[in-house]
């Protein structure tokens, strides 16, 4: 799931400073789940912006909407009527959502209210951890299902680095050493032999941007 986080209010305020009436658009998928851009957060941000404008002696009018998935053209279509009433759109979707709205409604400026951070999972309520780097060449078969590319601070494919300290990372002692976790996991599965193998460095420059996937016809 895509994990995002709200931008500081100051940044958002600056983006929309010149407008009197805006539409805030939430997304009902990933960012709802990570508490960054669902209907609740849209309401809170709208309220906070109105208050902030008032604090500065101005007044801001807001409309609110939350669509099922902002990254779908068809789904942002339903914003049409509302967008006609406003000067700008503030999207609480991930980067894909912002761009979908911007593509569909080219005349209206669309601003991001969130920073899209990473692909991750919830550890407990309110805490999300990055565990996939979307590198395009999955390595998890060799590491017991633990990704060293994001979860090792150094992104090592042949770990651990030697800086491991009682299972913690030398770069950030708060974090677990990914390669210690990998060792433990493989040990449980009796697959420690995988650790002996050497893996050549990956060439991330060879990754083609923008990525593109075409599925076979169903």
């Amino acid at each position, binding site marked *: 799931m895509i994990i995002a986080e709200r931008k500081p209010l100051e940044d958002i305020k600056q983006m929309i400073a010149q407008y009197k009436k805006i539409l805030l658009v939430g997304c009902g998928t990933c960012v709802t789940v990570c508490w960054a851009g669902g209907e609740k957060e849209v309401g809170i941000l709208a*309220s*906070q912006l109105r208050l902030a404008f*008032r604090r500065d002696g101005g007044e801001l009018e807001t409309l609110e909407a939350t669509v099922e998935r902002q990254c779908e053209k068809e789904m942002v279509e339903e914003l049409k009527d509302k967008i006609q009433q406003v000067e700008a759109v503030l999207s609480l979707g991930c980067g894909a959502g912002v761009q979908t709205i911007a593509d569909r409604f080219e005349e209206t400026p669309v601003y991001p209210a969130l920073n899209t951070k990473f692909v991750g999972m919830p550890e407990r309520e309110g805490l999300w951890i990055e565990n996939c780097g979307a590198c395009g060449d999955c390595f998890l078969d060799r590491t017991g299902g633990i990704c060293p590319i994001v979860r090792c601070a150094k992104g090592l494919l042949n770990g651990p680095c030697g800086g491991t300290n009682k299972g913690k990372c030398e770069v950030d002692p708060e974090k677990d050493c990914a390669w210690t976790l990998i060792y433990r996991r493989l040990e449980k599965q009796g697959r420690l032999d995988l650790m002996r193998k050497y893996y050549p460095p990956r060439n991330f420059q060879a990754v083609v941007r923008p990525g593109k996937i075409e599925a076979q016809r169903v």
Partner: protein
Amino acid sequence: MTTGVEFLPCIVAFCCVHSAYQAADAAGRMRIPYPENIIMVHIPCAGRVDTLHILRAFENGADGVVILACHEGACHHILGNIRAKERVERANALLREIGVDGRRVEMRTCAPNDGSRFARVCHELEEKIKELGPSPLRKHA
């Protein structure tokens, strides 16, 4: 004050029906007066209050917001008061982002049978908001 017109703060108090609402009743029965400009919104548990409710109270012109909850360890829903406290902290932070004194939102506790404490808390809240002055978030006239 020298301004002539006395500032009468408007305070929104979210009152848990298990504690503050009953404490207010107790204060009434004991005829203990407290400021009348405290608007009591009753709620089933402090945990029902959403950050949005707090912000909207300010939008509507409140000078201060308080959640009056059960004492820590006495919540009928175990953690409702702790949740409320978290939301008060978030509302504090959101207000500070706007440039408003976060002290305008707070959480206080009282027991259902403690009418005198309820009245005392109301007086303290009024005093505090009076000190902070009118909310800069009030609608412009």
